[in-house]
């Protein structure tokens, strides 16, 4: 049951009305020494690396004399590893930590301990579901909007007659992706999407071979399936590769039988978009995401903002943002980045160069 939340306005880049602080958005004072740690779910995939790049860019802009630490656990040891790193950060005397939650509520005690030790704790990419121990969640997009974007892309690809499609997610316990799936299911209830039939949710466990096998199994299981929708960027290319290997899409001079859409990185998918295997997909800029996260955290850690609803701040080149109640969770604050970029043949080659 959705909690009663303030209706979401969607203020993106344009500054919105700020009732509490008429003085206008807070600006950061550069040059303060803040020891900051960026903690992704795990190391070794491109999207987190891009986030790191964005954060480094912000660090340079803000002239923080302390170097940015980029640390992460191994994928199979996500939760315990993140707890370990958070705990070590406290011992090291770090001032702030930015976390992409690799699990559910397990990080709460460690995050609380960090807060008690006086650290700034900001989540990005994937929040703490209960909101405990977290100061602010920097959301890449509105999680409810994700559902709509995904459904719209599916509709535009499959056309009015609709058909069967399946979602491939990273793992059953990934908080952000589960929220997107829930949002997608909500959206699909609306009459305009009635013809879209979501038949199954499969999990690729962030491994190429599992994504690959799952894709083929879906096709075998539903011979009339039309679309596969990976919502995990790291699994997307494997899905395309599987379809192409077995001749379902991207064959010269043939109409593709099954295509893909979802959330993916342009640089990894150019060729598939060009050959029609992934005609259209969405994502946000992870570089910007890291940049915004760093700004938010820096401001919180230097005390420029307190982390209260309605506070507005300026995040360098990206403009002004507002801290708001997170409408997708019962508790918790968020800063929403957005919007989605939709990629297709027209813009992908440009985007892939980034």
């Amino acid at each position: 049951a959705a909690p009663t939340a303030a209706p979401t306005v969607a203020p993106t880049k344009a500054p919105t009305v700020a009732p509490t602080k008429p003085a206008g958005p807070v600006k950061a004072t550069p040059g303060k020494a803040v020891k900051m740690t960026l903690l992704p779910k795990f190391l070794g995939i491109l999207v987190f690396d891009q986030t790191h790049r964005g954060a480094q860019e912000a660090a340079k802009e803000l002239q923080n004399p302390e170097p940015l630490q980029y640390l992460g656990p191994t994928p199979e040891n996500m939760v315990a590893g993140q707890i370990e790193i958070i705990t070590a950060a406290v011992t090291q005397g770090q001032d702030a930590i930015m976390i992409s939650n690799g699990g559910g509520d397990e990080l709460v005690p460690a995050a609380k301990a960090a807060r008690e030790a006086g650290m700034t704790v900001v989540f990005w990419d994937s929040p703490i579901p209960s909101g405990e121990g977290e100061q602010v969640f920097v959301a890449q997009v509105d999680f409810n909007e994700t559902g709509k974007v995904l459904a719209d892309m599916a509709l535009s690809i499959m056309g009015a007659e609709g058909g069967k499609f399946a979602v491939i997610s990273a793992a059953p316990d990934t908080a952000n992706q589960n929220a997107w799936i829930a949002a997608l299911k909500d959206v699909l209830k609306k009459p305009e999407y009635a013809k879209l039939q979501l038949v199954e949710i499969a999990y690729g466990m962030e491994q190429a071979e599992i994504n690959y096998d799952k894709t083929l199994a879906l096709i075998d299981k539903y011979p009339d399936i039309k679309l596969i929708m990976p919502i995990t960027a790291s699994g997307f290319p494997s899905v395309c590769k599987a379809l192409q290997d077995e001749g379902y899409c991207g064959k010269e001079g043939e109409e593709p039988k099954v295509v893909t859409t979802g959330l993916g990185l342009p640089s990894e998918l150019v060729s598939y978009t060009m050959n029609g295997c992934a005609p259209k997909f969405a994502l946000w800029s992870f570089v910007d995401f890291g940049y915004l996260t760093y700004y938010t955290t820096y401001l919180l850690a230097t005390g420029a903002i307190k982390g209260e609803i309605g506070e507005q701040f300026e995040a360098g080149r990206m403009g002004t943002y507002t801290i708001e109640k997170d409408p997708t969770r019962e508790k918790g604050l968020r800063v929403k980045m957005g919007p989605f970029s939709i990629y297709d043949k027209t813009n992908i080659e440009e985007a892939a160069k980034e």
Partner: protein
Amino acid sequence: MARSATSPAGGRNLLLGAWERLKSWEGLLLGVLVVIVIINSLQAPAYLSIRNQTNLFQLFIEKIIVALIMTFILINGEIDLSVASVMGLAASTLGRLYELGVPIEAAFLIGLAVGIACGLLNGFMIAYAGLPSLVVTLAGMIGYRGLAYILLEDRFIGNYPEWFSRLGQQPLIGPFPLALVIFFVLLVGAIIVLQYSAFGRYVYVIGNSREVARYSGVKVRRVKMALFIVSGLVAALAGLLYAARLGSVRGSVAEGFELDIITMVLMGGVNMYGGAGSLYGVLLSILIILNLRNGMSLINLTGHVQTGVIGVLLILSVLAPNLARNIQATLNRRRMRHLAGTLSEAQESP
């Protein structure tokens, strides 16, 4: 002839044993530990604080509890790869039952019972059906994990009563949380049982040779059965403590822990094939791994690099003494040859 266990002779033996140990593998481990502690305390001033030291145990507490019983099992010449899955299954059982409205106390006990049941199955297959433990517990590792997934599917269950989470996270006695207290109690108990009791003696002898023990009237099957049941119980307890510490449970709880646990035991000098090893060594190896990991985190080595370093350590821990022995033997031979040479010259010259 009746003499008490604390006879002076016994006491001296203990001291003597301690000295012997210092010169041996345990001595080396102790040296390594001291070096690590010194480096760490130079790295971060907060390292030596009680808080950090308790934290460091706290982060690995479940693994080190299970490492104690794993020591028995490896000395016994067997292996239990299923411990991590039993941890997961026990925790998932707790989560599922709590979700269904069963009081947490009852769910806790049932979780322990599930652990015992897993131990019973493993033990029966190994002790009575005579199958190799590597195979049985490998299958258990996959199978029990599967059951955990059946119970919880993609959910994670949190929101336990306040006291339950506090038990896992807050200090109970002094700065020590419950799990740590349990660990120290188990440690003392384990040392007494393994090193000084008849049962411990049987564990060693069976590890040496199952047949010899059987032909000497040792109830081999019962000992093995008991070990695996206790292993299931302890693993379940650790899994439940883990659930309390994290404040939530999911199907993948404790996945992959078995490798760390086995590394701790083997680096402690326990013979892979059974029959030799001691808990003192295992304790030292646990301390080394905890402090080393903490130290690496403090200098920002994390993730795969950390496990890689542990891997190097694991190999070195066996390779180093082997090499040392070889070098020693060669040197000895050289010295003897040299000695013999001078001797024969001395004999011939007059």
